[in-house]
């Protein structure tokens, strides 16, 4: 809903960023040297570097159109799994014995985290944490309440809690384009490296869907909605020209990260139709028209949003779950320990990493609400001080400094407020706002000494 377009300077900066980004590959872990071959249920085979393999879920690095990408296969996708090359002994962690053939019969999934995490979980129930990206209401905007910084800060807390699985519960109506790549990077490059990373979609609209799109394993709540990613600004003005092309290209790359057909996201961004055919073997093929597929998902002249029904029908969603128990079942977790403290009014335990997100949002909200007050007080105090005597100046300088410190504290918590409130890039904020403001206040006091 609130998909705010960037100012032109930001767009060009983002464009440069988007173009400069290669599709990041998962960092090599202990099993990276192994190769594997999967025989899919339609008889085709996939062979490549085995990135990760946990209880039926297999990630293989393959070449697609000359480009390396990591694809995930679930137990239901393939009939046979063969490791072609053993991982180096020193690098192979202790993992529970697994059947290498039909993984649907194998032990239940515990975690798809890499080697380090697998070693941790070898002999215990997997530990999972729910992290909310947005909480609806006034605290849902991507770029203000959903940000890469607190997510990155949460990783050590999750590791300290020995978490194996991270479930991102999405409840956001969208927000700023500038944060999408940062969020995608922290989720794809950092979370996926350490944890089995899952999205649980309640309300993922626009930038929130674009953020979630790098995640391959997606579940919906029954009322879940995902899409409507058209970029706009002002009075419902659409992004156009190069800016639009850059975002379309950015989302093609992010679609590849999540192993999602790029035509899906395109239909969510612009009015491209979308249909799909589901083969007898369950293979889903998407088409950017309304005639080639059996199931019309998006008619011409519309922008696409998934419901839980349509997402499940075309296997974009791996399952529909209202509760944690239902989610665990959909994720094939026979046992799971949800990390955190049960609190009244919350549907899942609150772990330290989630508490950090909640605290971040709370402070941002308070600051956001009071921000105009901070600014008005600062400006008024400075103005009033111009005419006052030394004693008055000293009092007002003190009040002005207090307001300045509140602003600095707000921006330390949430750097993007610099952009939204002052139109200053966060990394330039000290130079462009703090230092000049501090100088003005000091100047007031200097005059007092004279």
């Amino acid at each position, binding site marked *: 809903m609130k998909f705010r377009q960037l100012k032109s300077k930001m767009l060009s900066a983002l464009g440069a960023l988007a173009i400069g980004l290669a599709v990041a590959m998962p960092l090599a872990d202990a099993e990276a040297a192994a190769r594997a071959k999967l025989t899919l249920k339609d008889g085709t085979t996939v062979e490549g570097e085995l990135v990760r393999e946990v209880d039926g879920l297999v990630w293989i690095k393959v070449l697609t159109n000359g480009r390396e990408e990591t694809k995930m296969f679930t137990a239901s996708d393939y009939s046979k799994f063969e490791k072609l090359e053993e991982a180096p002994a020193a690098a192979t962690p202790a993992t529970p014995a697994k059947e290498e053939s039909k993984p649907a019969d194998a032990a239940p999934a515990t975690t798809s985290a890499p080697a380090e995490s697998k070693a941790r979980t070898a002999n215990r129930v997997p530990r999972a944490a729910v992290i909310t990206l947005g909480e609806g209401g006034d605290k849902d905007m991507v770029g203000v309440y959903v940000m890469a910084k607190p997510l990155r800060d949460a990783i050590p807390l999750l590791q300290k809690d020995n978490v194996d699985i991270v479930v991102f519960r999405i409840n956001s*109506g969208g927000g700023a384009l500038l944060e999408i790549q940062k969020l995608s990077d922290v989720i794809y490059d950092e979370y996926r490296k350490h944890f089995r990373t899952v999205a649980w979609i309640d309300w993922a609209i626009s930038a929130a869907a674009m953020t979630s799109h790098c995640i391959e394993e997606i579940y919906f709540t029954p009322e879940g*909605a995902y899409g*409507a990613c058209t970029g*706009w600004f002002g009075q419902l003005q659409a992004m156009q020209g190069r800016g639009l092309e850059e975002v379309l290209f950015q989302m093609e790359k992010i679609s590849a990260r999540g192993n999602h057909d790029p035509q899906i996201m395109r239909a969510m961004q612009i009015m491209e139709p979308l249909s799909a055919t589901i083969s007898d073997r369950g293979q889903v093929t998407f088409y950017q028209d309304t005639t080639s597929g059996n*199931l019309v998902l998006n008619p011409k*002249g519309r922008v696409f*949003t998934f419901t839980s029904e349509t997402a499940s029908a075309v296997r974009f969603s791996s399952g529909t779950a209202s509760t944690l128990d239902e989610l665990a079942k959909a994720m094939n977790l026979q046992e799971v320990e949800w990390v955190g403290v049960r609190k009244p009014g919350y549907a899942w335990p609150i772990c330290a990493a989630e508490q950090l997100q909640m605290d971040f949002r709370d402070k941002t909200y308070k600051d956001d609400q009071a921000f*105009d*007050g901070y600014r008005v007080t600062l400006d008024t105090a400075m103005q009033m001080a111009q005419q006052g005597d030394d004693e008055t100046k000293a009092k*007002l300088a003190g009040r002005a400094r207090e307001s300045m410190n509140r602003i600095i504290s707000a921006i330390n918590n949430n750097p993007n407020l610099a952009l939204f409130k002052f139109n200053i890039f966060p990394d330039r904020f000290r130079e462009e706002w703090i230092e000049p403001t501090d100088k003005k206040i000091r100047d007031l006091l200097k005059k007092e000494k004279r």
Partner: protein
Amino acid sequence: MLQRLRKALTNALRGVAFAAAALAAPTAQAQDSQTPPRVYYMELNGEFGYDISQTPIREAMRDARNQNADVVIVRIDTTPKQSEFERLPDEKQNFDELFRAQDILPIFTDEIRREWSKRPRLVFWVKRAMGGGAFMPFVAPEIYMTSDARLGGIGGIGVMYGSTGDEVVRQKQYSLRMARAEGYFIAGGYDPKIVRAMAEPKYVLSYRLEGGKAIFLERSPERPDEFVLTTDQEDSMQAEVRGQTRSVLTLTADVARAIGVSKGTVDNLDDLLFQLGLSRSHTMIQGRANRIMEGWKRDVELASREIRKGVEELAKGMEGQGVNSFEARTQARGRQIRQINDIIARLRRFGEAFGPRWHNENEIPPIAQFQIQKEQLELQQLVDKK
């Protein structure tokens, strides 16, 4: 093929919903054989989002839980606040009250799952559920209607932005709203085509009955046993006035019954209990629901009045500022700050009922504005001298 796929999908999901209902049913029936089911009854009357709001509903549902209700009956009768002369036709307004409904709906879904040790049988009894209120009954597996019931008033999603901005952005706005509305219908076990017909002008929907079940068809009727729900024609003024629109669907008792939304038409509680299979044996809980609801309405109205009065007095106080002695000015500022604090406290306490329209109609600025005013007064006091 497309329709077969959609049908299979819908039936599969409906199957899950029925299975869930079947799982829940034995609990109530088992209870039946031992002790009479305890029935909690609440009425939601008034303006949706103002009188009908999450705080009193949550409190009433907690009362029901604390009183070990086995069955919760919610009667809904929304009334528009504006005068009949100012009101625009029901069918064309209010889709965005969906977002207000979002604050309330989880009380009947997530919070029941979370806070009740045994899920109660939830029944909605509709007299009039228009605008945002139209989304509420669909959280319940069982809906009953009065003979003069109307359910809808969320039409116009495809035209709500008129010609503002670019088409692709308008389509984005429609798409996200429709997906959310459909999501609530899916979660409640109802066909999402119903809400599309209720919301999207000129979406063509008809149905036929197969084995007593409505099969929805996204086209005009083609056989004598198929019935029209909506057409792609404009409604006449006469049809609008009489609530007989065909461009968007407003459910009446008969239509709702025919398409399986309503399980029955009843005009009094005894008949409802009979239809629910509870007439022979049940215990009506003497709940606090009505007192809670009435108390909320009274408090909101009082708060609304006090805020308006406070703002007027504050304006008068500001006008008289600066003409007295230091002591008088200090006293005046202290009084104004107390008034501001009082206004802020009331706005916070009842903020859920005071939406943008209320602020606009009553010319009450947002809380942040009062806070700035308070800061200004503090600064003035800081530099004022005897």
